[in-house]
């Protein structure tokens, strides 16, 4: 059982706290969507949870231990991040990119061991990306590339998977497929998954918990049907959105403009 906690977390950039006292606790197996308007601090929260951004005040705990207290290698064996934008200027193959997920396991003069290679193959087959393994990463389609990046994160064999707008360059079918894959990972491997999502309907359909961030604080946190009501949506995202319910799952549509 893994638990990630933020306690009165303040974080941001020198002289400016983007996060203004965030309290959050997430356990293994949970599929959490982090939503909120632009500039609310979603990416900052994700970086603080990942341990790559040091909190100004408060702390982030992984199983009770501050993430900043981990040696970077040990932290990277527990927490993996799927970043928003992923490019490399060199012609790495998809397999080479996924193999870089083993970075926290290989030593100096590191060569991937047979165990490392096996972990990469497992990760790539889970994300259905083995078929593109020997193609150039930069020549893959958006959906293929995102699956390879998730494979790289899985090759880290993490307990915690943090995703920053993983669906942003994908068409609706691929968006659904990717989030359903993350959901399977959460339920089958017990991975704790937190994804920043912009698409509220995707968040409502594919996640079992929604955390709403606005102006650096959490303003709502709970099951999609409890969080995405007309009042909260209007308060956080402003007017112009229509909220409804279909089969018990909330949906949000823009109101037609005249």
């Amino acid at each position, binding site marked *: 059982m893994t638990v990630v906690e933020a306690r009165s977390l303040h974080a941001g950039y020198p002289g400016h706290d983007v996060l203004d006292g965030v309290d959050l606790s997430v356990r293994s197996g949970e599929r959490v969507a982090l939503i909120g308007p632009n500039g609310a601090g979603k990416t900052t929260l994700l*970086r603080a949870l990942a341990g790559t951004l040091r909190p100004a005040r408060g702390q982030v705990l992984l199983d009770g231990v501050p993430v900043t207290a981990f040696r970077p*290698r040990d932290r990277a064996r527990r927490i993996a991040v799927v970043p928003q934008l992923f490019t490399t200027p060199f012609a790495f193959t998809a397999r080479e990119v996924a193999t*870089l997920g083993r970075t*926290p396991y290989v030593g100096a003069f590191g060569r991937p061991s047979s165990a490392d290679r096996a972990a990469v193959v497992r990760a790539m087959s889970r994300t259905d990306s083995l078929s593109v393994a*020997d193609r150039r990463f930069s020549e893959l389609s958006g959906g293929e590339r995102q699956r390879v990046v998730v494979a790289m994160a899985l090759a880290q064999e993490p307990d915690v998977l943090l995703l920053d707008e993983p669906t942003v360059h994908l068409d609706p079918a691929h968006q659904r497929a990717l989030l359903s894959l993350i959901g399977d990972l959460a339920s089958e491997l017990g991975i704790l998954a937190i994804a920043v999502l912009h698409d509220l309907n995707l968040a409502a359909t594919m996640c079992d918990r929604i955390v709403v961030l606005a102006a650096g604080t959490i303003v709502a946190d709970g099951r999609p049907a409890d969080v995405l009501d007309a009042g909260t949506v209007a308060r956080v995202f402003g007017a112009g959105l229509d909220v409804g319910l279909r089969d018990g799952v909330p949906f949000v549509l823009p109101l037609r403009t005249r």
Partner: protein
Amino acid sequence: MRRPPYGPVLAALALALLVAIVLAVGVGAVAIPPDRVLATLLGSGDPAETAIILSLRLPRVLGAALVGAALAAAGALLQGLLRNPLADPYVLGTSAGASIGAVIGLLVAGAAGFFVVPGLAFVGAILAIVIVWQLARVGPETSVVTLLLAGVVFSSFAGAIVTFFLVMSDRLQLRLATVLGWLMGGISIVTWGQLAVSAALVAVALGVAVAIAWRLDALSLGEEAAAQLGVDVEAVKRSVVAVAALLTAAAVSIAGLVAFVGLVAPHATRLVVGPAHARLVPAAALAGAVFVVMADLVARVVLAPSELPMGVISGLVGGPFFFALLWRHRAAYRL
């Protein structure tokens, strides 16, 4: 994308280097055929030829090989560090920075300064990398255009300093023609002592480069991604800068300013062995060594009996190559 197996590629490059060395040793005022060069290298040669080869030809050819290996490895490392295929110790002004140090070393220590010259060249190279990189850095990104501009400006500035030192110095014991030939990339100042020092520097640098190669691969995905993979980003960057400066200093101490070797060799090699630095750096070093040994050979025969500085040949080959790269990437860099 299938790549040829790495071992045979490395073996082929090593064989090519051996052939190039034997050919280059044989060429000169007294031509020595390859079989007699090999006989001499194996210790059973004619005494007169042995004297020519061991005191004149071999140090120079091995010096050329070291220059090529060092510049190619430095180029590969700088390209990985800056996530930019146009980086190279000459273009970035690293070689020019090293040349300031080397010239000061030559002036204060004379021709025997084979510890002082690379030492001061190393200091100059580090300063050059840090200054140019800081100028071109905007947050975590490095602007290509600013990087090239900063490199050009720094090189001109360093060139002015070097010229000033050369003109002002009364203590300049070396013949001016020799020093100018060296500055233009002539492999003109090679002794066995200097070779040993440079070879040791290059060997240490290559060892460190291979040790940090995996983390440099991770860094080429971006600093944030590397940090999330557990890489100590600042430590890797410091190591790469130190190693690239060491390699550049070793090369500049022998051959002054040699353009584009650090650009051509890693590029060509990457096409064959792929971008992973643990494979790229050793293969690029061998390819660079072959390239410079052959360039020096051509430089010696093309106007025989007079000699061109080797840098003229590598520049003539590398310049168009650099233009081709700019042309291909010009849309991406908005040039």
